[in-house]
Every structure is written in C-alpha cells, then in structure tokens.
C-alpha cells in the first residue's frame, strides 16, 4: 500500500471562513498511514469528506454534449463544499482541481482526517439509468470499530457498513423529498439504493456512500433532465446538504444518549 507521503497535498481543507464557491483557502497534507505527516486538524468538528470521482487523465463517463464525468463530479463537490461550510461543517475534499488520484489515495484522505470523518460521500455521474443512484459497499458488516485494533485496508469499510446503510437511507430520504419543498428545481428525483463492490469506498474507515447522478428519464426512457442541468445539480446538492445536516443532528443525539446521564430515548 502506498504511503500518503508519496501523494502530497491530497487533502484540501476549508472552514467556516471559506468563500462559497471559491477554492479552499488553505491546504495541507493529510496524515500518512502511521500519522507521520501532519494531520488535518479537525478535532471537535463534524467532518465530511467529499470525493469527486475521476480527474486528470481519467475523465470517467462521457455525458451529454461530450462533458466528462470528472467535471460534473468536481462541480458537485465544490457546490456541496460551499453549502456545507456555510452550515458549519468541516469539509475535506479529495481534489479541488483537475488531478487524478488513485482509489487508495482517496481512501487515505478520508482515513487520515484527525478525529475520523463523520461521513464520506463519493460523487459520480453517468448517462445510464435514471435519477440518483446511492451505493453502499457490498462488504459484509463486521463488529464495531472498537472491537478490533487494526482494519484490513481493502475491507476497512466493513466495520462501518451498518452506519453507511443508515447514512444512505438518510440521503435517499432527502433526495426523494427534495421535490416536495415547492422551491425551484426539477421536481421529484427518483433515487435507488443498492450495494456494490466499490474500490476506494471499501477502504474508507467512516460511514461512506457513493452517490451517482444520472439523467432523469420519463416512462418512455427518454431523457427529461440532463445531468449537466444546473437546476438539477443544485437540487441534488441541496438535498445532500440537508441529508448531512440531519445525519449530524442524529449523530449528536446518539452521542448525547451514549454519554453517562445523557438523555434516554
């Protein structure tokens, strides 16, 4: 397994002061596998890792009009980062520009967030299917993180699969209800939940889901809304931000309950 020192400046960090829509104001390398390199200082913060899939010479899928998947995923990542930062989240992104990272490097970014990431979203786009596809690793769940000292790199996600499924449910609910608010948008977004073998996500030691954006199609399978539609993207990003806000609230409530003398359900 390569060490992070080989891949400098992997993590981009943005805080509350970041200007929405602008590239991250500060960047520092994340920790190596044994924490040799400086850790991203995220103590006490609710950290979300955003992974814009593909990049560099890996363009990913070709979308309508010859747009590369890597550009759409980066646009979604940047928009979501801005929204989350404005809501008080600490956001770590795997890439802020047109660079290619291998899947292990992406997982390393997520795994070396200081106090552990609260959620990891891997963003994808495709021309196949309809609506938004939400994926959780197909690895079989293992015991809670505390029960083992070490996690195998390729199956690290197995300790978090149950929480990832819960996160996927939250994201699914937010997407399905995103058309109910009556605000501008493309209306109801169909979302499908599934499990798949996801290299990269399988190595992430945090609740992680892959979100794949596909065009919205009618019953006759004809495209009604393209992936590149700005309103569609905005609605998805709003829904993801709402889902993460709910995830944060739920996590804090669970933490309160777990504390001695905390509230009982």
């Amino acid at each position, binding site marked *: 397994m390569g060490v992070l020192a080989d891949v400098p400046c992997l993590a981009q960090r943005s805080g509350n002061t970041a200007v929405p829509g602008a590239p991250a104001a500060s960047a520092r390398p994340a920790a190596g596998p044994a924490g040799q390199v400086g850790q991203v200082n995220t103590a006490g913060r609710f950290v979300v890792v955003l992974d814009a899939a*593909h990049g560099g010479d*890996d363009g*990913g*899928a*070709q979308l309508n009009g010859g747009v590369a*998947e890597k550009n759409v995923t980066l646009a979604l990542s940047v928009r979501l980062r801005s929204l989350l930062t404005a809501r008080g989240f600490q956001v770590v992104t795997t890439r802020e520009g047109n660079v290619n990272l291998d899947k292990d490097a992406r997982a390393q970014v997520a795994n070396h967030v200081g106090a552990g990431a609260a959620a990891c979203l891997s963003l*994808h786009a*495709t*021309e*196949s*299917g*309809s609506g938004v*596809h939400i*994926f959780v690793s*197909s*690895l*079989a769940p293992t015991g809670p993180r505390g029960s083992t000292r070490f996690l*195998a790199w*390729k*199956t690290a996600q197995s300790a978090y699969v149950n929480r990832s499924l819960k996160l996927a449910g939250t994201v699914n609910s937010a997407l399905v209800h995103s058309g109910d608010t009556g605000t501008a948008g493309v209306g109801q977004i169909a979302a*499908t*939940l*599934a*499990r*798949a*073998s*996801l*290299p990269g996500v*399988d190595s992430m030691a945090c609740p992680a889901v*892959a979100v*794949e954006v*596909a065009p919205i*199609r009618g019953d006759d*399978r004809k495209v009604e809304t393209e992936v590149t539609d700005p309103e569609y993207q905005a609605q998805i990003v709003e829904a993801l931000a709402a889902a993460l806000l709910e995830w944060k609230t739920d996590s804090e409530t669970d933490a309160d309950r777990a504390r001695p003398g905390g509230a009982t359900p």
Partner: protein
Amino acid sequence: MIPRYQKIVFGVLLVVSIAMATLLVRLRERAHDRLLKGEDVAPTTAPAVAPAERATLMVGNDMDGTLVAEEISLPLPKDPGARARALLDKLMEIYAGAGATHPVPGVPRAVLQVFLLPVAEVGAGKVRARLAGPAGSGAGGLLAVVNLAGAFADGHPSGIQVEALTVESICGTLHANLPQITEVRFLVDGEPRATLAGHADLTRTYLTTEAVAAGPEAGVEAGMGAKP
C-alpha cells in the same frame, strides 16, 4: 563405384523421407486448423440436433437497478463451460438489442470463454481445492472464470450502476442455470483488469449466492457479495 541396387535403395529412401516430411507438415497444419476452429466455434454453436431447453436469464434494468428473471428457450450444449458461454452470449444479445432495459453496445464474441474450476479453499495454512468431481459435475462449488472481450469492456457504458448490473446479471445468470457455480471471476482478453469501464471492480471474486437468496421472482436489487 556404387552398385545399382544401392542407388535404387537410396532413391526410394529419399522419396519416402520427402513424402513423410510433407505428410507431417500437412498433419500439423490440419491439427492447428482444427484447434483454432474448435476454439472459435465449439463453445458458441449449439449442435443443431440439441433440443431446445428452458433457461433463466437474469436481465438488468437500468431504470430501477434491478435484475429480472427472464425465461427463454434455446438449444444448449451439454458441456457446462460451453453451456455457460452460450447463455452469456444470449444475455449479451438481449443487451445489444433495440429497446433493451440495460443497453450495452454489442460486439461479436463479447464472452470469449468461460472456464469452470473447483473453488479453492484456504485451510490449515495452505490452499487446497475443494473435493469435487470433474469440472461441471457439481459435487462442490465451482468458480467460473469469465473471459470478456476487450472490445466489449472498452465499449461498455461507464457508471457504477450500469457496470454493476452487467457483472451481477452475468453472475446471476450463471448461478440460475448452473447452481454449482458459487463464485465468478473476470478476465478481459485473458488478462486481469481493474474495472469494467472505470467503476465495477473486476479484481474481486463475486459470490453468486446472495443475489439468488434475494429471489429472482420479484427482481433483485443490484448488489452482490464480494470477497477481496
């Protein structure tokens, strides 16, 4: 002075040697042609005399990410490896057809070969093959190694769901018709390949049992077990 009879014997031996060498070369060429012809044709072409059999194809649907069991009738070879390949060829034919629920561009011979091997077990510090009869006898679990054509992988639509559906429909179809197949691995042009078209992991061994456990009748939501 060489006696006349020795000249005759030498001449006969020379002619026989040349004739034998020519025959040998011809036989070698014929054997080579037969091998190549066998590789190209034998696994795909079902014997014309074979009766049509019922088979179940697990067909993907991009709209909702499910696999739906589809009953078909077609002549199938007896050999399990050739049978598996004929079934996958039919599946790819459906995907390449107009109005497919999971459209994938068709290429000639998308599935080059399907090899069936006994599943390897790791036990007591060593790898041993699970006791099984000859490949295809079904006495133990079988690993199917599906060798896909590079042109098929290169032309496959890119995306997590669309690639996963292709992989899972192959696994599901194999298990539905050859239940002894419990694991599936993939090669592309005979070589390991990281992903099908950028997303689906082809370096893993896929377990077929989990899709079947979910039940093909109601349609199986995409998602199969995998072991690293």
